[in-house]
């Protein structure tokens, strides 16, 4: 199945794009999507400890399962205000 990955801020810069369409196996979690992404973009790895994720524009856990067509966003630590 396919998911759309969205990256922001420094993650976006390190990966070189704001959006990727990625193929993942059925039953994959957000963590699985992230691991696949890090394999292709190892520079992202240091963010694993401080990451947040969202599925379809709702905050989610890395253990959340994703479905075909989902938008999965990975968020570095925020700095609004």
């Amino acid at each position, binding site marked *: 199945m396919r998911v759309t990955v*969205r990256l*922001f*801020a*420094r993650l976006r*810069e390190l990966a070189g794009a704001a959006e990727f369409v990625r193929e993942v196996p059925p039953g994959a979690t957000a963590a699985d999507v992230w691991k696949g992404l890090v394999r292709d973009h190892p520079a992202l790895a240091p963010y694993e400890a*401080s*990451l*947040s994720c*969202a599925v379809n*524009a*709702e*905050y989610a856990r890395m253990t959340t399962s994703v479905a075909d067509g989902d938008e999965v*966003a990975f*968020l*570095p*630590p*925020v*700095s*609004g*205000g």
Partner: protein
Amino acid sequence: MGAPLTAVTTMPLSAEGLVAAVSSRGAGAVASFVGLVRDRNQGRQVTHLVYEAYEPLAEKALARICEEAAARWPKTVLAIHHRVGRLDIGEASVAIAAASPHRADAFAACRYAIERVKQIVPIWKHEFFDGGDVWIEGATADPDDEAARERALAIACA
């Protein structure tokens, strides 16, 4: 009225507009907060900032903060606008207003809101300074982190 209670916008922010949006005939006190772009940060001479947002989630996070405040201070009306895009020195990045029958609640809700914005709203500050640029990274966003929420409440209600 006029202004929506929450917004993520590229337009300049207006404290006055937010004050009007939250005010009502029963409101005796309006506390507000404006965050401005400073010319210095950690010894760097800042030239400008660019704020980036995950907009649909940022809108929801602002609405969530308003709901949290409404649960804690039921008679208080809160509004939060955050700007995105390029901001020059002295421009407002965030504007918050809280109206309440009594000033203690207005101050508390306003302070709570800015602390929560910094904790859970998916917006990022890209700082451009003399000699380079840097992404500012603050809190790992987790709206369900009760310890973070308690910290914001403790600061607000102290």
